[in-house]
């Protein structure tokens, strides 16, 4: 947690920056649009309707739509926040100006004010409290939706929240969620003070607000300026794990920002982009042997499940899993197709028996490998037993999967020994360093602990080791003569002044 406190500050600042950049753009575009539709009533319906529809799109889906258009990172995140904040700003500008006493508006014209003079001296000043209410709503929405920015590598407090969910770390979730809540309340309060400003200062406020939000925006833009020579792309889970970025920093002294990416040793990208896995010469990544974890009561009720789930044991090594992931991620095969082809090739596939003895609930985390494994297990269970399968795939991370299992929402999901050790059991550092070098000792340790603490059984390991890995382009690695993570550290330190 101590290592994380600097990060908390950084992420909070990033979050404020993210909120204000999009707020600045929203105000810059939303207020003129709101003014425009007070003068063009036909456009009003269309524009308000369109902004309303944007608001109804689930935020995750909106980010999903934007990825093919804008990729990942700050730009799609800011775009999504902007699109969400648009409706309250346009609508409140519109209703604010429409709500100004028509007698006063007519008087302004009758006195000889031009349209622009009336807008600036009368309409906007009198509509100010209503417009500010819209900006407040937009700000609170932005702080909330801003946490999702972490999903697409745009930073902010979401990194902690989603990292915490993935890592089964409640403190980490709260470390992101509490500052986000405080931020929303604080910004809303500050803006409420602006909203209540007297007539005199309103015009000043109208000018100053965009400038202030521009100032806050720099919180986000400035840190992008300082980065080291190589860029690294890590998932939020990797950034927060001791066997991830933190370990890289403390043990290798490695500080990189994307020439190197984090991934899994069975990552389809290895094959797709001809990447090289750097050797973990100081052993910070423990073994990650995958095996099905099942509730003991389910196993007792349906004892035939054990042997069926163990049928995959020893069948899939690292390169086979890499190939399966590659098919799904890069050849766009469905996980189900991929699972069936594999089982058929292995002579394991049997047509479903369509029995009605009961239902087994299978879960999976939200990445392709887990989908493939779950589909294989589903086919095996339906082919070899009289049980039906209900699949709950795409659970958002280790924490959600594990909680679903212990709370009897699912019966079984594939877990990795290293993840169970570091993210769920979290033993002492000495214990970890004692266990880490040996595949079997980690497996035996987690099996025993799961059995005694959670009434869960680890079945036989499937065979592959899906460890975290640092990957580089093969050609670049050869050119720079980098084979291990220590080589990489040396290369980066060499050129630092």
């Amino acid at each position, binding site marked *: 947690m101590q290592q994380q406190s600097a990060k908390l500050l950084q992420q909070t600042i990033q979050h404020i920056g993210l909120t204000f950049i999009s707020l600045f753009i929203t105000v810059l575009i939303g207020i003129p649009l709101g003014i425009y539709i007070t003068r063009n009533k036909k456009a009003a319906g269309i524009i308000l309707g369109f902004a309303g529809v944007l608001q109804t799109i689930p935020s995750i889906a909106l980010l999903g739509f934007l990825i093919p258009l804008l990729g990942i990172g700050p730009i799609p995140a800011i775009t999504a926040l902007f699109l969400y904040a648009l409706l309250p700003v346009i609508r409140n500008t519109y209703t604010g100006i429409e709500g100004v*006493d028509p*007698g*006063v508006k*007519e*008087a*302004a*014209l*009758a*006195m*000889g*004010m*031009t349209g622009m*003079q009336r807008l600036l001296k*009368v309409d906007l*000043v*009198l509509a100010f409290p209503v417009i500010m209410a819209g900006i407040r709503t937009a700000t609170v929405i932005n702080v909330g939706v801003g946490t999702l920015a972490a999903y697409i590598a745009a930073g902010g407090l979401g990194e902690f929240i989603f990292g915490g969910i993935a890592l089964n770390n409640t403190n980490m979730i709260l470390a992101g969620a509490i500052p986000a809540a405080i931020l929303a309340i604080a910004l809303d309060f500050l803006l409420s003070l602006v909203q209540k400003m007297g*007539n005199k200062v*309103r015009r000043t406020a109208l000018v100053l607000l965009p400038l202030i939000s521009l100032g806050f925006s720099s919180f986000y833009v400035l840190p992008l300026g300082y980065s080291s020579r190589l860029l690294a792309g890590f998932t939020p889970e990797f950034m927060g794990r001791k066997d991830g970025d933190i370990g890289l920093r403390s043990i290798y002294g490695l500080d990189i920002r994307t020439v190197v990416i984090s991934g899994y040793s069975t990552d389809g990208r290895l094959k797709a982009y001809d990447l090289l896995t750097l050797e973990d010469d100081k052993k910070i990544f423990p073994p990650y042997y995958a095996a099905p974890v099942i509730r003991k009561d389910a196993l007792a009720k349906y004892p035939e499940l054990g042997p069926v789930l163990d049928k995959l044991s020893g069948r899939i090594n690292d390169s086979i899993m890499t190939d399966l992931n590659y098919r799904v991620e890069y050849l766009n095969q469905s996980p189900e197709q991929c699972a069936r082809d594999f089982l058929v090739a292995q002579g394991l596939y049997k047509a479903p028996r369509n029995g009605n003895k009961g239902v087994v609930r299978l879960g999976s985390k939200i990445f392709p490998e887990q989908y493939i494994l779950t589909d294989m297990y589903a086919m095996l269970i339906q082919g070899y037993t009289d049980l039906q399968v209900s699949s709950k795939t795409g659970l958002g991370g280790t924490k959600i999967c594990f909680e679903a299992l212990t709370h009897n929402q699912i019966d079984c999901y594939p877990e990795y020994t290293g993840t169970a050790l570091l993210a769920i059991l979290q033993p002492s550092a000495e214990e970890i360093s004692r266990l880490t070098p040996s595949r079997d000792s980690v497996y035996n340790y987690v099996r025993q602990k799961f059995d005694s603490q959670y009434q869960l059984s680890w079945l036989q390991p499937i065979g592959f080791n899906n460890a975290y890995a640092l990957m580089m382009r093969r050609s670049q690695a050869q050119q720079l003569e980098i084979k291990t993570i220590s080589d990489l550290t040396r290369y980066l330190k060499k050129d630092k002044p």
Partner: protein
Amino acid sequence: MIAVTNITKTFGSHTAVDNVSFTVKEGENIVFLGTSGCGKTTLLKMINRLLEPDSGEITIDGRPIRQQRPEDLRRSIGYVFQNNGLFPHYTIEENIAIVPRLLGWDKEKISRRVTGLMEKLHLPPDQYGASLPAQLSGGQQQRVGIARALAAGPPILLMDEPFGALDPITRAAVKKDFKELDELKSTTIILVTHDVQEAFELADRIFLMDKGRVVQEGTPDQLLFEPAADYVRTFFEEQRFALEASRIAAGDYPALIRAFDHFKNRQR
């Protein structure tokens, strides 16, 4: 001089002003009188281009107003609204100073003018100058509305039911102070009202309007004693005695008796 020639204005299928022509001499006070919906306010708003006529032409001192920038035109024409139309976010001083500021007067001159007008309209500047309109009574607000319209010394003043929203006592007081303003001596005033007594009190000439047309035009006496149509006669019927009595010079008892007989005959 204001010359209005054959102007017509329709809203959808409703003809608000139907082919109206008239001229107003400099310094003249004329009143458009009629029931609500007769087109009198529409007519007024076309003179400062808050509304544009569908056809016809309006000239001021020989210049068609259509050829002037609406802002410039409006800054040279005072306008008083029934519901004052004061800016709620401006102080009384700022409200009165709107047009002089738009015209770019220097601060000194504006301040002198505002103070002078407030004093004449019995709004002590020290007491009310920095107040907001909402802190004033209805009568005081209407005084501010009049001061605002007159601030830049416009040669023309348009008044849309200026005393209509006030109670009778306040109305009499505001009207009295208004009539005493020396600014008005050279100002051309066009006022619209549905109040017959007010029209008789303020008008050099009255235009009685009905359904977008001028039914009769003339001095108050002409309308009262020489009605050109039944509509004109019935319009004044209810208040005829009071109106006739008010037109009779003090001491002219025979005329007063004639008027009373006339009134009694009507009653029967």
